[in-house]
């Protein structure tokens, strides 16, 4: 099962038939397994990793450190939810260490990010402080190097 997940994580366009050949299983068996994994939300979504810069689309990302006061019974969860419901928030992690939430925000301009932090994020009750770090360049994302200059120049024929 893990092998199927690995393959799909790397290339979600693989068909059940292809996965069956690669893993030495029957196609129907793979189909059933994938359906089950989708049904129980082990597989949440299929998406495509896009280098937007190459597509000529300007996007601004910022990693925002959020410190907050935990609440009785729910800890950080309630505040986290108020934050992750915003569509401009792409990723939210609860962190150990110097701050509590790592919030990745994506907007079209820097000003929009700043406005989001100032008017939406920082004003949420129990948010104690924020620190915004703008992303200057993405080298690697989801395990993939975006502009891999490394090449493997093997000879065409070797013994």
């Amino acid at each position, binding site marked *: 099962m893990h092998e199927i997940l690995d393959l799909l994580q790397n290339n979600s366009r693989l068909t059940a038939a292809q996965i069956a*050949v690669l*893993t*030495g299983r029957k196609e129907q068996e793979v189909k059933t397994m994938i359906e089950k994994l989708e049904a129980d939300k082990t597989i949440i979504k299929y998406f495509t990793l896009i280098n937007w810069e190459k597509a000529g689309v300007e996007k601004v990302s910022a990693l925002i450190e959020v410190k907050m006061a935990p609440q009785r019974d729910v800890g950080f969860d309630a505040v986290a939810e108020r934050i992750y419901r915003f569509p401009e928030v792409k990723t939210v992690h609860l962190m150990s260490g110097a701050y509590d939430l790592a919030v990745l925000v994506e907007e079209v301009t820097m000003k929009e990010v700043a406005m989001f932090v100032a008017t939406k994020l920082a004003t949420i009750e129990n948010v104690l402080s924020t620190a915004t770090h703008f992303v200057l360049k993405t080298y690697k994302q989801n395990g993939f190097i975006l502009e891999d200059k*490394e090449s493997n120049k093997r*000879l*065409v*024929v070797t*013994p």
Partner: protein
Amino acid sequence: MRTKWSEYINPAVQQIPPSGIRRFFDLATEMEGVISLGVGEPDFVTPWHIREACIYSLHRGRTTYTSNHGLLELREGIADYLSSQGARYNPRKEILVTVGVSEALDLAFRTLICPGDEVIIPTPCYVSYLPCTELAGGVPVTVATSMEDQFRLTADKLEAAITPKSKVLLLCFPNNPTGAVMDRENLLKIAEVVRKHDLLVISDEVYDRLTYTGQHTCFAALPGMQERTIVLNGFSKAYAMTGWRLGYAAANEEFIAAMTKIHQYTMLCAPITAQVSALEALRHGKAAMEDMVAHYNRRRRLVVQGFKEIGLPCFEPGGAFYAFPYIGNTGLTATEFAENLLLEEKVAVIPGDVFGPGGEDCVRCSYASSVEDLTEALQRMGRFLKRRGLQNSKVVYI
């Protein structure tokens, strides 16, 4: 000066035919858009942590000679690995680090072979085995394995090849070019013949980690075999380190001492940079290696299934990264098949006859390429067969 340079060249060298692969290489190199299944090395680059360890070693100025035997730490790591395979060696006296398995093989031959000694070599085999035997003054005696036997050496065939001059048996499993593996049961039968006729064994196990069906058995780990076996292995295939040129030999103390005499005067030592990197591979390379092996295994299934679908009979290779499909039913010789396939469909495969008797009706296809390239190559090969009315011909030997 004599009129021709050839008059100066040692006849023993002159007699060696140029590599059959070479001619093919020239042809394939000149063409654009070729998908090559002719490459006998991983398509992965060396894992980053190994390269990073290499860079760090250079920063620290580790640029000197090492002991002739190789870094002791590395030999200890190698001994630990071999011990995990069931063969115990003293890292101080029974292991020699060499410049690739190629050097180890040459040293073993030169240390062992007296003029006229016969070396029994199961074929199809790696292209250097026969010439290196001859250069060392030995006489190669080939034993053709067959697809019916899954390209394994059988005890009967070995027995039939033995003469009073037989001295050493050269084994290479998992095998280049066939992808054949020999399990413990198969090897025990060979070991019996080896003992009966008092042979030595050189066991080239460079593809040992790339075993997909069952468990690899180190020949020296068989009962009573360590004392008469020279194990050769290296880092090229398992860790995608072909260009680093690092291998080793493990054998009896006296034999290693004798090999080391030649090594110290011809090579001095293997490059320290490669040795440091190999040590990093042994210490921390398991996860990356296993990941690469998983990739090869998927591609192996892909090509075996692919050949089945396009109608090329192929036995299921259990190791290395080669498939060796049978092309005898195409009416073409292996060379004609490979040349026509290259010219018509721009897919490079290696004609099986260059690997010696038994390979005449097969071609070697390396699956150390991306799934995309392999899929495209299989489609092109299917087209090639279809044009000859051969697609989906009866599949045998599966």
